[in-house]
């Protein structure tokens, strides 16, 4: 009993220590841009040359993301949570993620910075969130390619709308997806503990190398949305 108590204490202690010593990557630095469908091949070739591991094949992914939100008791800002699962790798756990408000900063900050905490979950997470009281705001499907350079992750993907009327089918409606636009979204992101701003400069240098194909820059989505 005492031993068990002891182990529990040390586990909590180590967790607290980890939180304090700033080794948990809970900040995300990222840049976004887009590229037309017709030029995606060129971008993929360039990324293959620039990024690590040229010898492996292109890594594709097909994900389904759902965004939930829950309001606090005092009708404050709703808390937004995202659940993402992989459609082509069924064995992998689903991911629950909290993304905070992005800090655009001024000219001296090369990238957008936002809080990001994620955890792998079992398949019951949607039910769990629903029971908690979250409601689903929107969902989409993302299909594209992933690259990696050092700590940076580059994703090039297309956003698809999910056809609600086909949801009841066995494929879940994922065979008839309609693209949102005629472009692919390109994201460059790094997950790091807070305080490592030097990585932002590396990201900017890398973004320069992708010009003029793609313009990776800080985009403030709050200014873009005028309405629901």
């Amino acid at each position: 009993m005492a031993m068990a108590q002891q182990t529990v204490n040390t586990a909590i202690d180590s967790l607290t220590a980890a939180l304090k010593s700033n080794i948990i990557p809970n900040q995300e630095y990222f840049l976004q841009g887009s590229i037309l469908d017709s030029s995606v091949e060129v971008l993929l070739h360039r990324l293959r040359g620039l990024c690590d591991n040229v010898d492996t094949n292109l890594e594709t992914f097909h994900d389904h993301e759902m965004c939930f939100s829950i309001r606090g008791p005092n009708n404050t800002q709703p808390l937004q949570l995202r659940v993402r699962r992989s459609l082509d790798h069924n064995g992998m756990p689903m991911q629950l993620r909290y993304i905070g408000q992005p800090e655009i900063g001024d000219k001296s900050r090369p990238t957008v910075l936002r809080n990001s905490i994620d955890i792998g979950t079992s398949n019951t997470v949607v039910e769990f969130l629903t029971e908690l009281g979250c409601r689903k705001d929107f969902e989409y499907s993302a299909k594209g390619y992933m690259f990696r350079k050092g700590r940076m992750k580059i994703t090039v993907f297309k956003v698809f709308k999910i056809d609600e009327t086909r949801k009841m089918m066995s494929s879940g409606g994922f065979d008839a997806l309609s693209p949102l636009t005629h472009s692919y979204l390109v994201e460059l992101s790094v997950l790091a503990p807070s305080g490592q701003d030097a990585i932002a400069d590396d990201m900017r240098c890398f973004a320069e190398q992708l010009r003029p194909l793609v313009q990776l820059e800080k985009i403030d989505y709050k200014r873009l949305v005028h309405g629901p």
Partner: protein
Amino acid sequence: MQREEKQQDAVLEAVISRVNDLKTSIGAMIFKVENEYETLNWPNFLDNFALISGQLTSLTKILSNEKAPALRNFTVLPLMLKPDLDENLARVTEGRLTTFSHDIVPDYLRTKPEPDAELKMMQLEHKANCVTYETAQKQVAAMNKVVGHVWDLVNKAREEWESEAGSRSGAAQTFSLTDTPLLVAAISMGKGLKHTVAPGAMMGGPPPGPQRGPGALGPPQGPPGGIPGQMGPMGKAPSAIKTNIKAAGQMHPYR
């Protein structure tokens, strides 16, 4: 008149600045030639010359600008001559002049060209005067034709090169400026993705949560089975959903 004066002043300012630049670059070149003649190499030297010639060109451009009043029409009129030291003057002329007195005026304001230049002009004029009017016209016409021809050739070549370079660099826009914000808004805020399946019940707002409670039919059997099962009710007829809302709406404690 005011406007003209202002124009004149502006032009004068521009001309002065250009002339000063030219002066500095010539001075720099002299310095370079005198001190670095051991390490001076041809491209460097040519660079300096190119700089000077560029500045001369810009000066002529300013002068030939239509807004600039023809400086030919202005004469420099000395207003007064003082043999006293003038600090202001010294500052303006970078120490070259301290007094605006009568001995410097003839040198500064002379209009006769330099002896070398004058000699060259004389030679050319002499040569020109030896030629009759008709031959002169013919020669002028021939020259114009030749120069025009060369000008065309060079222009065409330049256009070709520029278009070649332009097409190689891919003039086509590879990204659409409108799509980027659209996509970012879509994945961040759900703009454009919020479904409007049944126009009756669901217009304008995301479907409320409680209908998912009864919608989670049975134990979830893995993600593909579970999620469509949960999304199933939304594809059903709206009437069923409506009753659900009524039933569970007040009960939910988290709202």
